[in-house]
């Protein structure tokens, strides 16, 4: 991990990118709110043959934090990006491995992806509103309970029609 930390930080310095990785537990962490710097950092990680393992998103106050988890030679390099306006530049053109996880955070948190090659819904149907995680859906209204209720209403209506 120390070797990767030095390699990354030396490369960032060489390219005048004002970001630094620091160790925490058994992985490296870095933070920024500048999407241009983030993209430069992603390009650097691509040259180091990193892959995107996952992107974790969560709402923070009025904004969002996205944590990009890169595997770089067996060490996790985590980059935390603060997003204030629900818009983020896509890194899928650099990392095909980011494709699904970017689409998922977009549909769950209503974050718009710029420059994503295929910004379609991943799991959720188009009829469900964006940023679905901000709303509460009871399971019964979404699944079998809803089916049963709809079915039962039909049965009751038919029964009433038969018996006047």
């Amino acid at each position, binding site marked *: 991990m120390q070797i990767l930390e030095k390699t990354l930080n030396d490369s960032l310095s060489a390219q005048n990118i004002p970001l630094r990785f620091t160790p925490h*537990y*058994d*992985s490296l962490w870095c933070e920024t709110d500048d999407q241009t710097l983030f993209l430069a950092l992603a390009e650097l990680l691509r040259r180091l*043959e990193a*892959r*995107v*393992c*996952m992107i*974790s*998103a*969560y709402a923070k106050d009025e904004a969002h934090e996205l*944590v990009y*988890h890169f*595997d770089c*030679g*067996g*060490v*996790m390099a*985590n980059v935390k990006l603060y997003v204030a306006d629900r818009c983020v530049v896509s890194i899928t053109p650099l*990392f*095909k*491995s980011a*494709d*699904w*996880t970017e689409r998922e955070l977009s549909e769950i948190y209503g974050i718009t992806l710029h420059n994503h090659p295929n910004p379609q*819904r*991943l*799991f*959720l*149907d188009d009829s469900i509103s964006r940023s*679905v*995680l901000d709303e509460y*859906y009871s*399971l019964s209204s979404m699944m079998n309970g809803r089916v049963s209720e709809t079915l039962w209403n039909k049965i009751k209506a038919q029964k009433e029609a038969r018996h006047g």
Partner: protein
Amino acid sequence: MDKTTVILGPFDVALEEPVYFKIEPNDDARTIQSVDMVNGFVHRGIESIVLQKNFLQNLIITEKVCALCSNNHPFTYCMAVEKIARIDVPMRAQYLRVLTDEIKRIASHLFNLGMLSHLIHDGALMRDFLETREAFQDLKERIWGNRMDLSANTIGGVKFDLDETLIATIQTTLDHNEEVIWRFIERFEHDEALINRLKGVGVLPREDAIRLGVVGPVARASGVDNDVRKHAPYAAYAALDFEVILKQDGDVLSRASVRLYEIIESMKLVRQVLNALPQGEIALHVKTIVPEGEALSRSEAPRGELVYYLKSNGTRKPERMKWRVPTYMNWEALKIMMPNNAIEDVALIFNSIDPCISCTER
């Protein structure tokens, strides 16, 4: 020839779980030109549910995300909690966690190989694989009292221990079945009919495997070495000796072969655990108050790398908890594997990534 789009799913007897395939055939109407897949039929919003439960309750929920890799979810989740809470898990528990994971891996790989046999209509081979798997299902029942969800892990250690009788039972099960696995390997390497049926089907070239970031046996069958147990060792793996199985052809046969040899490696690991099992506690008696912090953990599930991210704000419930399962990364590879293969092989190729839709969609 008729070039009608072929539809498979979302619910079909050839599919273990719901997926909707839209297959565009080539001009011969028998082979695949391209394939599109629609997901989301078993999306349950579990990542939202876990934010409403406390850390101990989430131990139970993570075990229910998936059946076949049900041990890896609570195991990896526990590792994330333990990192934030700075809990040093006792060594005996670390070894027992390895034992649990490897027995689950053996049973999971045998199930996938049984399904492969079913999809090529070799009923006798399917029976042999599933009979062998039964020995490990019985073993799980003896050790943990359950055949699928083992409830082996807890925050700070494990919930079970081994006595001399159980150790002898595990050794007997391994002794009886290792030879059986070698006979399967012999068959997959020398049975011409079987090789002709599987060789060259659903090829994923190495460069595509790297580009897509695929994981697990799918990656290793294309020559990509990213076994988490070796590259980022956890639990007791750093102290144990095993080989990462690599093949180069990237086809259905290679993926089956990787799984067969991995069963042998898992047996080696289980034997080492039994021989070197440290004395001591199986769990620390910790409170489930997790301090503020965030951590990432990962493990090598039967299908490949499983990643958990956990963020705590010091309350009883997580602020964010996210996980990414192996099938999530392997899915897009189907679009490389399938073109120019026979339409009738869609389910066979799909099975060769050992898909878990419930895990993937959560």
